[in-house]
């Protein structure tokens, strides 16, 4: 047994992100790790690589009890990880990057570049990787960078290589190169933990598969003993929404986005239509471009193609200002980073996008401001010490309510909500669901992005699938089950 975990758990703010995991990994196997967003895959990786501290449970490495408290210790015992976003220094060449975090070879007080280059080239040869080590990381293509990371991982004795969505930014052809390297690593006896959403890769590469669900381990199976459908079923709870009453009759089209292409290439083709009274769920796996699509529609992220019209009017120059002017608001996923100004007071946060509405000749009418903010605080039942309290001091749920209060100040026709219930308590979550349904009933259109499929099934009238930067099928949320929806996401 190369790696064994015994009853390991990890909590954040009293909520288990990982619970009682007994995971086993054999030497020389390729082991797939699958699960929905938030199933706990990343948390496990971060524990194994020393990013998170382990609080409960034991880790056994080659049958010895070990404690991994930081990334260096993890690397020292032979665990390496290659992340979705690569960690190379752009201006360093191949040799320098391969030696990151390692002692340089020094002879006679001088760095022996030749010896170092030979070592790196030897590792590259043994893996059958051909890249120019003189080139800087910035000059390399994405698959070449992945290769360089693998070289770097193999510089020291590496017994376990963790690959976290390694093909997310690779083309199919580039992925083939990676797969052949993975084959070579396996021949050398290196174990691989392969984390991905892509079922075809799981079935092609792995020997065994471990399934995570909601922070718990479901089971480990031999790859040859399961089918794809069975596996998807194991990953998700059988669940179909029924809680809030849904609609099938809608009013006029309030939002129409056509042919959106983002400048950075993450959104390749976005088409969305939402009507008055509709809650349109948008679902896609991590990295599918759902957040980026919303940001493009709102005019926050640059686009190179596409049009957005709100209530029949095309927004000529897309920008957050113009979106707000047309009655479209965005509730960001990244609350602290983009939706809220922690250092400002609750009142100023609520009024953030309406400063000019409360100013006469540039002078703020603070009485009216306080009144307006107080009304919203009361309407949304936000628990605060006072309007002058700093927003950062509130709990997650109340912070999110402040964000909603800010959005409501604009009397929006279109709500773009990105993970609006992320990191909020259960009560606030259902309050937000009710609020959005109420706004839809009053005639608004709501776009609801969530990585939590259960939530989408619970609140959405229709579900738009997003995968690999493109909007795909539009599903009517009637008698839909989670695995039916997921099947669309996993298929190419």
């Amino acid at each position: 047994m190369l790696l064994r975990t015994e009853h390991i758990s990890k909590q954040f703010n009293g909520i288990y992100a990982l619970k009682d995991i007994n995971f086993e990994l054999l030497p020389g196997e390729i082991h797939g790790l699958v699960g929905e967003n938030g199933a706990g895959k990343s948390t496990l990786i971060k524990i194994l690589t020393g990013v998170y501290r382990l609080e409960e449970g034991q880790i056994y490495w080659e049958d010895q009890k070990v404690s991994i408290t930081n990334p260096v210790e993890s690397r020292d015992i032979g665990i390496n990880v290659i992340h979705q976003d690569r960690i190379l220094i752009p201006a360093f060449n191949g040799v320098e990057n391969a030696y990151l975090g390692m002692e340089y070879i020094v002879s006679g007080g001088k760095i022996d570049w030749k010896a170092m280059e030979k070592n790196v080239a030897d590792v590259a040869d043994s893996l059958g990787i051909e890249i120019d080590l003189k080139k800087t990381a910035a000059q390399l293509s994405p698959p070449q960078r992945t290769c360089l990371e693998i070289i770097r991982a193999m510089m020291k004795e590496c017994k376990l290589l963790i690959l976290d969505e390694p093909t997310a930014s690779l083309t199919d052809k580039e992925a083939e190169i990676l797969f052949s390297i993975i084959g070579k690593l396996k021949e050398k006896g290196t174990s691989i933990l392969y984390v991905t959403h892509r079922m075809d890769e799981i079935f092609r590469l792995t020997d065994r598969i471990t399934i995570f669900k909601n922070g718990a381990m479901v089971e480990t199976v031999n790859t040859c003993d399961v089918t794809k459908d069975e596996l998807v079923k194991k990953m998700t709870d059988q669940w179909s929404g029924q809680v809030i009453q849904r609609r099938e009759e809608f009013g006029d089209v309030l939002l129409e986005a056509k042919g959106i292409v983002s400048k950075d290439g993450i959104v390749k083709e976005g088409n969305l239509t939402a009507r008055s009274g509709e809650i349109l769920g948008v679902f896609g796996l991590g990295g599918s471009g759902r957040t980026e699509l919303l940001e493009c529609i709102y005019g926050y992220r640059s686009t190179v193609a596409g049009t957005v019209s709100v209530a029949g009017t095309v927004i000529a120059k897309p920008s957050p200002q113009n979106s707000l002017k047309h009655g479209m608001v965005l509730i960001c996923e990244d609350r602290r980073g983009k939706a809220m100004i922690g250092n400002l007071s609750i009142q100023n946060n609520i009024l953030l996008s309406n400063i000019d509405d409360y100013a006469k000749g540039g002078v703020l009418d603070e009485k009216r401001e306080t009144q307006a903010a107080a009304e919203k605080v009361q309407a949304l039942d936000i628990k605060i010490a006072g309007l002058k309290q700093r927003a950062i001091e509130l709990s997650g749920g109340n912070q999110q309510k402040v964000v909603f209060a800010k959005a409501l100040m604009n009397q929006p026709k279109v709500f773009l909500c990105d993970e609006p219930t992320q990191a909020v308590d259960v009560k606030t979550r259902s309050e937000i669901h009710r609020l959005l349904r109420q706004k839809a009933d009053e005639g608004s259109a709501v776009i609801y992005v969530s990585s939590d499929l259960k939530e989408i099934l619970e609140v959405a009238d229709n579900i738009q699938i997003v995968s690999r930067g493109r909007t795909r099928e539009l599903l009517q949320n009637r008698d839909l089950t989670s695995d039916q929806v997921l099947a669309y996401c996993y298929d190419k």
Partner: protein
Amino acid sequence: MKSKQGNVKHILQSYGTILAMILIIVIFSVLRPASFATVRNFINITRQMAPLVFIAIGATLIMSVNEFDLSVGNMASLGGVMAAMLAVRGLPMAACFLLPMVICGVIGWFNGWIVAKFQVLSFITTLGMSTVLSGIIYRLTGGATVFENIPKSFAWLGTTKLGPIPLLSVLMLIATAIFWFLMRHMSLGRKMYAIGGNEEAAKIAGINVKKYKNIAFALCAVMACVTGMLVASRVGSANTTAGAGYFLQSYAAVYIGCTVSKEGIPNIVGTLVGAAILTILANGLTIMQMPTYMQDVITGAIIILAVIAQRLGRGDAK
């Protein structure tokens, strides 16, 4: 017991800087009662700090949008030089003082435009601009102080007294009040603080971040220009490097001022306190006949302490 400690901490956090200022005043008053602790000297201090306050208000604005302008020193010098040269040419006094403000405002706007357009660091951009400005000053003056043929009326602004109170001190208080109102009670200030607090959130809330940063850069340059002109008017000549000494002092005043606000953010009243502390120190140490190098050491140490205090005060907030 614990709440008492909390109280002390709270008082120190809220009023520590003002208490420090009072402490400095008390120390100098005890050491030099006859020369320091006089009404005349205090009036003198308000006049000495006036030029610093103008440029420091500009620095407060630029820091409130979370940017930096390193060209303020040379901007001040340029302002003084331009005003003096225009006066020599015999332009009406109003034009001598208004035209440089317009020119510097445009240069400041340009600073902001470069920063926003090319998404470059304001730090480096304005450092480059600063060097450009020093070149322009040299071209204008040949490196020599402008002092010949300056009309007497040029000195009016810097030397007039209203009874015992210098006009400079009065202008300083008026400017402080105006900018306090602007930052505290007007939409412009609210938007600038929003940008400084979280630029992305401000953008998403529909605030035109580029525009307000440009305004901040322009106002910052105008205020630096005013400082340069006031110094020139006060001494009746324009030194080509008159502004250099104000650059570090202005940011020091802002940093000390940050510690006056609960949130640890740049604010006009705090900046006034910061400028006062720096000026009182310089005044007191000079009266004590402390050598210049000691003054530099003490002033520098206080700036470092202020930055640390600001960091500690800010603590949890993003």
